[in-house]
């Protein structure tokens, strides 16, 4: 009995390739069923302490993650990663046009945030929005189809990369910084309706220098709006490093009179705990709070930017090898017996398949019909005529 157990354990601890090569199908099935029984249900993790601004206490430095949570975060982050890489591929094939700002490297931010808030809470971000569009409930297929500009896209092909929306997710906003006052307005509605909902208003290190953000900080603090201002600091605003753009790069302090946290944005659990803390702060009526997530994007600013003229390949490689959010989670899960490498690999395979199918749909779905051109100019409006490129061409607009 013990010999068999040892044999099973040794197979589990071998490298995946060797184990796969060595094990016969029948024993692999036996190993798999024994593995599930052997996994821990949950584990406790130490997470980095957050830097605090105007706060006596911060989020907890330990957190419990269940196996189920871990698998969910892993699958979601991996889905976003592969979706963004697929978008890269489609863009290079010229099937996606215009602007395409990719989120790979930053997955822990949107996944950690979503893990800490409710579906009835609200989120608004800028143009690097594909990750949030997914975590807020839009299927991969609809995101990719929106990118390829087809009628099955989540905005029927009329929005594109920067304009994707969902219930309680207000985009996808193309004008840098404009989404922050919008987010505070959504928070004002949350307070007004009194249903204990909050709003996450995200912006980047580049947007952090926008004047309208400071106008928003002032009003949010004055009126105690339940708004979490989240600065996703990925170190570069397009081609300008934070040191060249900001007199103070302590973005978590830039809210001045608003308390702030600086969070390790590559660790999904750290983001989750910080968001839980911030959400509690808002829901308890204390007003807004700022959360700086220190993160990194592997791609350039957009698909037009190779991303290596203002930073070194070595830097990108170093982050990939030492701080990749998906690898961090994987290592944690495997080392704490929450999942096996095979299991996670199976998830990778399933994710790749889903992305491939979604991409297949996205490249074969037809473009929106021409009649769609002028629909939805207004909301809840009787049909009217819209002038085309000359006076003899007109379109019907319905809502």
């Amino acid at each position, binding site marked *: 009995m013990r010999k068999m157990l040892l044999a099973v354990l040794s197979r589990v601890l071998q490298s995946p390739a060797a184990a796969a090569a060595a094990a016969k199908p029948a024993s692999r099935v036996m190993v798999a069923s024994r593995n599930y029984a052997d996994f821990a249900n949950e584990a406790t993790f130490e997470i980095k302490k957050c830097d605090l601004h105007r706060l006596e206490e911060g989020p907890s430095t330990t957190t419990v993650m269940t196996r189920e949570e871990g698998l969910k975060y892993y699958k979601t982050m991996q889905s976003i990663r592969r979706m963004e890489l697929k978008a890269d591929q489609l863009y290079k094939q010229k099937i996606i046009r215009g602007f395409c700002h990719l989120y790979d490297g930053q997955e822990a931010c949107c996944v950690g945030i979503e893990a800490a808030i409710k579906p009835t809470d609200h989120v608004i971000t800028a143009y690097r929005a594909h990750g949030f569009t997914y975590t807020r409930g839009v299927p991969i297929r609809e995101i990719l189809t929106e990118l390829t500009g087809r009628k099955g896209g989540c905005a029927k092909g009329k929005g594109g990369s920067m304009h994707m929306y969902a219930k309680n997710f207000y985009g996808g906003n193309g*004008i840098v910084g404009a989404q922050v006052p919008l987010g505070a307005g959504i928070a004002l*509605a949350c307070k007004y309706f009194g249903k204990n909902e909050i709003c996450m208003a995200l912006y980047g290190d580049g947007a952090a220098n926008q004047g309208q953000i400071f106008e928003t900080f002032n009003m949010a603090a004055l009126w105690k709006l339940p708004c979490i201002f989240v600065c996703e600091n990925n170190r570069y605003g397009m081609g300008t490093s934070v040191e060249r753009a900001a007199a103070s790069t302590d973005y978590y302090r830039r809210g001045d009179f608003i308390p702030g946290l600086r969070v390790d944005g590559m660790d999904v659990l750290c983001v989750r705990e910080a968001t839980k803390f911030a959400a509690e702060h808002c829901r308890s009526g204390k007003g807004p709070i700022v959360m700086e997530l220190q993160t990194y994007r592997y791609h350039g600013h957009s698909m037009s930017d190779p991303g290596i003229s203002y930073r070194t390949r070595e830097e990108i490689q170093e982050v990939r090898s030492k701080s990749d959010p998906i690898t961090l989670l994987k290592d944690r899960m495997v080392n704490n017996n929450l999942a096996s490498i095979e299991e996670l690999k199976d998830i990778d395979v399933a994710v790749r398949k889903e992305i491939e199918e979604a991409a297949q749909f996205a490249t074969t779905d037809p473009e929106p019909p021409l009649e769609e051109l002028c629909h939805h100019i207004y909301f809840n409006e009787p049909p009217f005529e819209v002038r085309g490129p000359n006076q003899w061409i007109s379109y019907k607009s319905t809502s």
Partner: protein
Amino acid sequence: MAVAVAVLRHLAPLGPRIPPHGCAGGRLLQHRRGLRLSAAAAIQVTVRDALNQALDEELERDERVFLLGEEVAQYDGAYKISRGLWKKYGDKRVIDTPISEMGFAGIAVGAAMAGLRPVCEFMTFNFSMQAIDQVINSAAKTCYMSAGLIGVPIVFRGPNGASAGVAAQHSQCFAAWYGHCPGLKVVSPWSAEDAKGLLKAAIRDDNPVVMLENELLYGVPFEMSEQAQSKDFVIPIGKAKIEKQGTHITLVSHSRLVGHCLEAASVLAKEGVECEVINMRTIRPMDIEAVEASIMKTNHLITVEGGWPQFGVGAEICARIMEGPAFNYLDAPAVRVTGTDVPMPYAKNLEDNSVPQVKDIIFAVKKVLNV
């Protein structure tokens, strides 16, 4: 008759309100009582009071409606449009903002996206330029970009165009700027009924509406019919009104200059020229059919506006008339009367020559009709 009363009022915008029984117009109204039953219940209401009533009624009718802007609450409004509302409805419904147009306009748009129905006041539309990105890119375009998922039921309102002696940075007309953009509705009231009916319609509309008021009209009383006094009185957005029927020439205008047109019309009537005066009421969507129908009757067109000529409201009307069925009915080229193409000067004599005067309209009519 009501129109003549309004024109007389219009000449003294800063004067005291004249009570209905103490003037020639009022007496004539009483004289006609036997013939027009509705005249008995009509009252004089200033544009300011009409706007105040509209806000009060809509705040009462729908809990989601709220007002925000600089000085709207405790100061009772920079132009007293929101007088008494903060006292009645409190901090939640009437919100004083700091001087942060871009910020509070964005906050208002976000609130609208999340289900509220804000009325966002710009102290004048000159300041709206600081926030214009939120009006256009966040409010106007979102319904389209989201393929109808997210509506933005917001009203941006405030005084627009020339005032008196406030000089270049406080006198610009934004009708053409906002009228240019799909996704917005743009209304421009003249009379008290216009102001009340259009503001109520704007607040009830599920789309972003820009309401361009005029500071010089705020104190002007107009007759308000019994129908207009009702809490459910709304004027449909997108429909012009014929203020005066005529046969010789069509004068199309919006906002304050409608009054100038009516005055010009009354002077010209004495010389036998009958002008048809159209009050556009809405800039976008424009009721060009009303103008076309009028031209098919009068065969002549003059557009009258306070804004600058280049790319203005009048330019758009003329272009559309050329493209439509009414062109063949024109006996002369359409003509525009506009503000002078210059930043607004301060000195009174220069300012008077920077906005269309009644004499400029009369001159244009005579030129077009060759009389």
